[in-house]
């Protein structure tokens, strides 16, 4: 007899993990299936990491409501889960006369949506907020915040796990069949049964829906490329700096966003691509990203770039579309108990906590009410960041555990203890990707050149993996093709 869940979530992105965690607040046996080696491997980990105030989304839409509520919930959620969240604020900057009008429109939309503290600022005020940025007028949103999207997703999943959910990584749903009391899922890791199914598969949500015979959804992958700058340039901006978006409906325009880790991101571009998993960078866009960012911030050089990457938006609209699409969050009429979340692109990260509540409400309706889980614990301990502590705190930590004294990743000052903790994460995600997203090792300016061998040494000490099980990000991404015997 296969394991049966009251509710099963397909997709370990930020939305899927937020839903799984939300459901553990109730007496519901909850499962989550993720085909990759960890959570936040797809779109959730490949974006600007911004909690949006909610002035881009058209008034009256589902998107607008979820954005506003999500943005309100986010600070306390991040606090509960120990996730870095900093309200750095944001300016949308007009550089040309004809862009001014757009700022007023944004402000109007924002206020209709319920955004707080929006104001138009002049050149002088821009200089005061962002001395290195040129602009003639700007919209200032002081509540806009940055957060760590990896840690948010990871902590949601870990908290869901702590509260009783089953998180199945490396588990791809291959077939969905309706049964007398719900659904049967066939995966590469066996069969599972579920009463209610939540399709939060992001870029693959149309395919998952189609597995159950629900047709009509079509996701159009739209890639956004980014550059990441060295930490020594972090002080060039204070908050997020956005342009007036391009006329085509592709994204918010190439912007500068600080990360909670102390870098600046440049990007993203917007380009429709045929494959939902083609996260390549292209020389044309890489060049364009730098040039456009340089116009904003002439103090950057190409030498400051330490890494480029890309993420893909699961869009519901095609390249030529005249208007944006709203989020689709609905129970299938054809197949009751099957909840689809389609086209959850930006502001999906911001909206995630609100979307999770919405889905819980839908499930409550389907089941005729939900019973609270009295032992639900909403909190996760914040991850210790040795690099960010005072000398006194560092000293105390080393006394407690000497492994805090050994710095493994020199660029980010990540210690052996932090690496070991990351290697022993409760989701049992053991790839290098999983370690680096949890403790930040390998993500600095040497990009793992020095610490990768040391991380692997620790991985061997902790888990004694086979050589073929040491991988960058799951099966197929093996780091080595063999090992000599008898070498210490």
């Amino acid at each position: 007899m296969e394991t049966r869940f009251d509710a099963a979530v397909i997709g370990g992105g930020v939305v899927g993990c937020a839903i799984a965690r939300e459901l553990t607040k109730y007496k519901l046996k909850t499962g989550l299936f993720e085909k990759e080696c960890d959570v936040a491997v797809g779109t959730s980990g490949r974006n600007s990491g911004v909690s949006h105030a909610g002035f881009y989304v058209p008034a009256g839409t589902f998107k607008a409501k979820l954005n506003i509520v999500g943005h309100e919930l986010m600070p306390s959620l991040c606090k509960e889960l120990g996730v870095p969240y900093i309200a750095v604020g944001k300016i949308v900057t007009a550089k040309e006369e004809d862009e001014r009008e757009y700022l007023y429109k944004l402000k109007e939309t924002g206020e209709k949506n319920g955004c707080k503290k929006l104001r138009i600022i002049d050149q002088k005020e821009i200089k005061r907020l962002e001395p290195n940025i040129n602009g003639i007028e700007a919209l200032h949103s002081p509540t806009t915040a940055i957060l760590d999207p990896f840690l948010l997703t990871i902590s949601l999943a870990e908290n869901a796990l702590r509260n009783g959910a089953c998180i199945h990584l490396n588990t791809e749903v291959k077939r969905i069949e309706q049964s007398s009391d719900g659904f049967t899922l066939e995966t590469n890791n066996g069969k599972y049964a579920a009463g209610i199914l939540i399709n939060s598969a992001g870029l693959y949500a149309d395919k998952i829906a189609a597995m159950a015979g629900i047709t009509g959804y079509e996701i159009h992958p739209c890639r956004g490329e980014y550059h990441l700058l060295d930490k020594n340039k972090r002080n060039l901006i204070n908050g997020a700096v956005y342009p007036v978006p391009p006329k085509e409906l592709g994204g918010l325009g190439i912007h500068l966003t600080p990360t909670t880790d102390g870098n600046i991101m440049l990007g993203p571009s917007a380009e429709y691509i045929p494959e939902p998993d083609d996260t390549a960078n292209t020389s044309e866009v890489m060049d364009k990203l730098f040039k456009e960012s340089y116009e904003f911030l002439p103090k950057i050089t190409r030498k400051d770039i330490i890494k480029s990457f890309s993420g893909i938006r699961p869009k519901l609209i095609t390249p030529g579309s005249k208007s944006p699409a709203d989020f689709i969050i609905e129970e299938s009429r054809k197949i009751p108990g099957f909840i689809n979340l389609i086209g959850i692109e930006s502001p999906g990260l911001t909206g995630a906590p609100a979307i999770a509540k919405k889905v819980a409400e839908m499930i409550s309706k389907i089941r005729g009410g939900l019973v609270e889980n009295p032992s639900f614990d909403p909190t996760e301990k914040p991850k210790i960041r040795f690099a960010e502590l005072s000398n006194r705190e560092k000293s105390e930590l080393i006394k407690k555990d000497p492994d805090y004294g050994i710095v493994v990743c020199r660029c980010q000052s990540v210690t052996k203890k932090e690496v070991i903790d990351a290697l022993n994460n409760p989701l049992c995600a053991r790839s290098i990707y999983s370690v680096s997203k949890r403790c930040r090792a390998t993500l600095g300016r040497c990009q793992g050149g020095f610490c990768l061998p040391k991380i692997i040494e620790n991985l061997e000490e902790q888990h004694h993996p086979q050589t073929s099980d040491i991988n960058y990000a799951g099966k197929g991404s093996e780091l080595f093709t063999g090992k000599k015997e008898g070498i210490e």
Partner: protein
Amino acid sequence: MIRKTVDVAVVGGGPAGLSAALSAKKNGAANVLIIERGENLGGILNQCIHEGFGLESFGVALSGPEYMQRFIDDVEKHRIPYMLDSMVLEVSADKKIIVSSKEGLFEITSKSIILCMGCRERTRGQILTPGTRPAGVYTAGAAQNFINLKGYRIGEKAVILGSGDIGLIMARRLTLEGSKVLAVAEILPYSSGLPRNMAQCLDDYGIPLYLSHTVTEIHGKKRVEAVTLAQVDERFKPIAGTEKKIECDTLLLSVGLVPENELTRKAGILIDEQTAGAVVDEDLQTSIPGIFACGNVLHVHDVVDYVSLEAERAGRSAAEYAQGKEKKPQTIKTTPGEGIRYVLPHQLSADSDVKLSMRVMAPARNVKLILSDGDRVIKTLMKTRVNPAEMIQVTLKKNELAGCKKIIVMLQNAK
């Protein structure tokens, strides 16, 4: 915090650090301390198991570990204390060093400090290589670590981008390990490695070198499946139509080294953007009195023997500073002229003979290296062949420096 006071603190226990510490000790510094982040002394040379080190200093070709062992033995003989697995988190202008180790967090106050942190490799991110981000892309040094110290096999079919020395040595290493090296691509029209490595690592094994070529795309979702090579024009832009896709599972990068000057910058020490190392005088003292720099953290060397020699000078200077020895004013400024990338040190006194280190911009044949004070030629050296990969050293005598306000070094066609 555990507090400690020393005369000379040496940040780094690699080739530069050990030589500097020994020299400081031999020049009268009573209390010298080496702080090393690795678990052994020796630094990066511990993974350089090929031979060719020590020809200048010892007249024999040693492997990296053998070369370092000579210094380690000497450090032990002189009972110079060292801390291992100890990371310097901060060096301040008032010469306090914060060190993290298993034993605790240390604050070490030192009369003088020698910076010997070495360098790191440039990465794929820094050279902006387009394509996917699969496993199987390694910097040459990381690959060397995995193969030589851990016994891992990093791949079966490799392409190497960059013909720097580590790239060339790794081409040979991979071949000896049974992997196939399909190509070495170099974006410049000439190799950036030493000629002897070109011969011994590529030619001897029939590994093709593609000059004026670069990797324009990395393919593969999970692990490298192929790379696209293309020829580049004189502005290093890929030429359309010259692309060729090479199936491989590994891409090794040997695309340059960067001095690791994060601590230096944080301390507020002046940096020469050309070398990416500190601005130093002939005592190898930085812009903060009592803080010295040498080895690859000062400028990237091609031969380790020169690192050791340079570090000796820094060690002596640091010992003298710690002993409160009066310092001569250093008012003669050096400047790289036509054809020269950089000249070190940046400031000289006319008080003693001094060895200048420099690199040319591009390879050339039959050239004159001219050292002048702007008006008057001080020294001319004929060179049949110069190469950016090979550091040039020129000694200026005390009497040659007399009366000079500056020294300009330039390259001229000999004809």
